[in-house]
């Protein structure tokens, strides 16, 4: 005899489709046009930063850079759902969230330009820096969330990683920890459909990435990752549950990487225009702009002013970044340990012997 011992389903949430027309009632925050304008500004600002960073890399003034073109709604939506005293544990394509949370453009340019000081954020002091070894940041999010739990705080963690990261053991282990201890953490899968050259369908046979939550005993859901309202709504709901002791959630935000993996990548090697171009019709900025315009909450003049403002901000950040002298070589020794061991002091003296 067999009986059904468990049943699961994964729901998909969308509030604003590609045509900019709401599907049913919007969540409460989205009924305030000012809130939506703020989200729109966050996304435009992110795109302006991406364009500047890519331009700087192309002209030899920045290191390899990972653009978030087309994925702005994921980063901005999740950040807008967070409180300032929450902790963000990012991957490397959530510039929009970092900027929203107060990391400066100059800091981001310093980091991607090869200067560790870029990760010494003046704003969100407890946020983790960009994470490059894919998925390895997920256990950190569990640890930070456990710390919050042990301190009896109502803060929470948001951890972002990509579709490729869901194949990593680190992510599976973090979900297990978060589930078994009901940790206050939201895992956002920034599913841009491509892990460098490997498409989503070749990453896993699972129908959704959200269902990775099911095995860990935590809720998982999918949202339209190009709908910033849906992203913010789903992450806010998950954060509210986390703060009230309800534990962790996986939110799979389905978006699309419109650009190369990084500036060191040439996506034409593994995907053609026919694959990419339909996704331009679904990207996050026009749909929200269309909706705001239909509400009478956004005009051509406001759009022009915003673009000019963003241009000025990225130009200023560029100037500040380029005017920042590199660190002394001594800095690589000084930050290895809290107190420089004698042996390392000898190496420092040798390495910096020819410095003034």
């Amino acid at each position: 005899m067999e009986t059904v011992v468990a049943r699961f389903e994964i729901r998909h949430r969308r509030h604003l489709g590609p045509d900019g027309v709401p599907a049913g009632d919007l969540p409460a925050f989205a009924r305030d046009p000012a809130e939506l304008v703020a989200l729109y500004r966050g996304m435009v600002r992110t795109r302006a930063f991406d364009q500047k960073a890519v331009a700087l890399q192309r002209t030899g003034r920045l290191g390899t850079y990972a653009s978030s073109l087309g994925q702005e709604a994921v980063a901005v939506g999740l950040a807008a759902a967070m409180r300032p005293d929450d902790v963000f544990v990012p991957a490397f394509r959530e510039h929009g969230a970092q900027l929203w949370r107060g990391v400066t453009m100059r800091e981001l340019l310093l980091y991607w330009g090869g200067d560790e000081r870029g990760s010494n954020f003046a704003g969100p002091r407890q946020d983790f820096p960009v994470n490059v070894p894919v998925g390895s940041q997920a256990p950190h999010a569990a640890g930070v969330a456990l710390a919050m739990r042990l301190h009896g705080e109502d803060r929470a963690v948001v951890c972002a990683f990509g579709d490729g990261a869901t194949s990593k053991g680190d992510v599976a282990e973090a979900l297990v920890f978060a589930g078994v201890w009901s940790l206050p953490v939201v895992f956002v899968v920034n599913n841009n459909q491509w892990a460098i050259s490997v498409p989503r369908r070749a990453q896993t046979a699972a129908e959704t990435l959200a269902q990775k939550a099911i095995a860990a005993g935590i809720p998982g859901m999918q949202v339209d990752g190009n709908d910033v309202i849906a992203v913010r709504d789903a992450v806010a709901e998950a954060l509210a549950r986390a703060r009230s002791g309800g534990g962790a959630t996986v939110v799979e935000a389905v978006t699309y990487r419109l650009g190369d993996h990084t500036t060191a990548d040439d996506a034409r090697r593994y995907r053609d225009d026919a694959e990419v171009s339909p996704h331009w019709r679904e990207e996050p900025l026009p749909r929200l702009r269309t909706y705001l315009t239909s509400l009478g909450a956004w005009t051509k003049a406001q759009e022009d002013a915003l673009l000019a403002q963003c241009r000025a901000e990225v130009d200023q950040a560029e100037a500040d970044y380029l005017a920042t002298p590199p660190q002394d070589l001594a800095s690589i020794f000084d930050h290895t340990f809290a107190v420089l061991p004698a042996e390392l002091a000898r190496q420092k003296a040798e390495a910096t012997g020819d410095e003034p």
Partner: protein
Amino acid sequence: MTERTLVQAVNAAMARAMAEDPAVLVVGEDVGTDGGVFRATEGLLGRFGPQRVIDTPLAEAGIAGLAVGLAAQGFRPVAEIQFTGFIYAALDQVVNHAARLRTRTRGRLTCPLVIRAPTGGGVRAPEHHSESPEAMFAHIPGLRVVVASSPARAFGLLLAAIRDPDPVLFLEPTRLYRAVREEVPDDAPPLPLDRAFVLREGTDATLVAWGGMVPEALAAAEALEKEDVSCEVIDLATLKPLDEETILASVARTGRLVVVQEAPLTAGFGAEVAARVAERGLMSLRAPVRRVTGWDTVMPLLRLEQRYIPSAARIAAAVRDAMAFA
């Protein structure tokens, strides 16, 4: 009198650190109710409760990564990796995160954590339980690597490791867990994490060892004394940062160096010791440096492990060779 075995000293150091600092947590597999498979955490759950002694799911990368997150929030996690062969799953978290979070953020986020793990063979354990991985960890910038070799030093070094503001890998030779008892008072002081210990003074040869090889080196020195060969025995204790000065000063007195490690020969930590002496102490040497090590083979299963692990006899033979050279 508070006589303790090495594993009891490890337990006492954690209990002391936890009593002194509420930020100290113990996390790992079976560390709570079970008290750890080697009983290193026995009694801690009852004394400090489940908020501070936390049984984790069976996931070593997760445990190390969890500790990074806890440490970044101001806790001082002491994470136990259950058996030596399971530590490699945690290596990524140690190399890419624990050891470099401070430098990556220029001091904004730090990792005051300890990863404790058993090391070495000799207790007839199953496969993957008897390796000596210290050299892999000593190669990691930003990480301290400490290997215990006696109850008293284990206590003082572990206490210091837990108080240290940076990550420490603390290796405990399973063979020594219950080998001897030693006076270890509860209020014993922490020991420095950048000093080697001269355990026996001598004039003819310097034996440098750590962990499970320290008693073997001492036994070899004892045997050689009967042959009128006087050996100085140094327990490195902290491999990184390395106390080069103590080694060089000793070799300057003795003129002969024999380095002993249980781990395989090639790229072992003994090579680092030999290289330092070659660089800065060559003119003191009257004989070539000798290394007595495990072999470049996989650690054998228990029926052959005693023939793999360097013995006092092999160490004594290496010293006799050095004496015969000059």
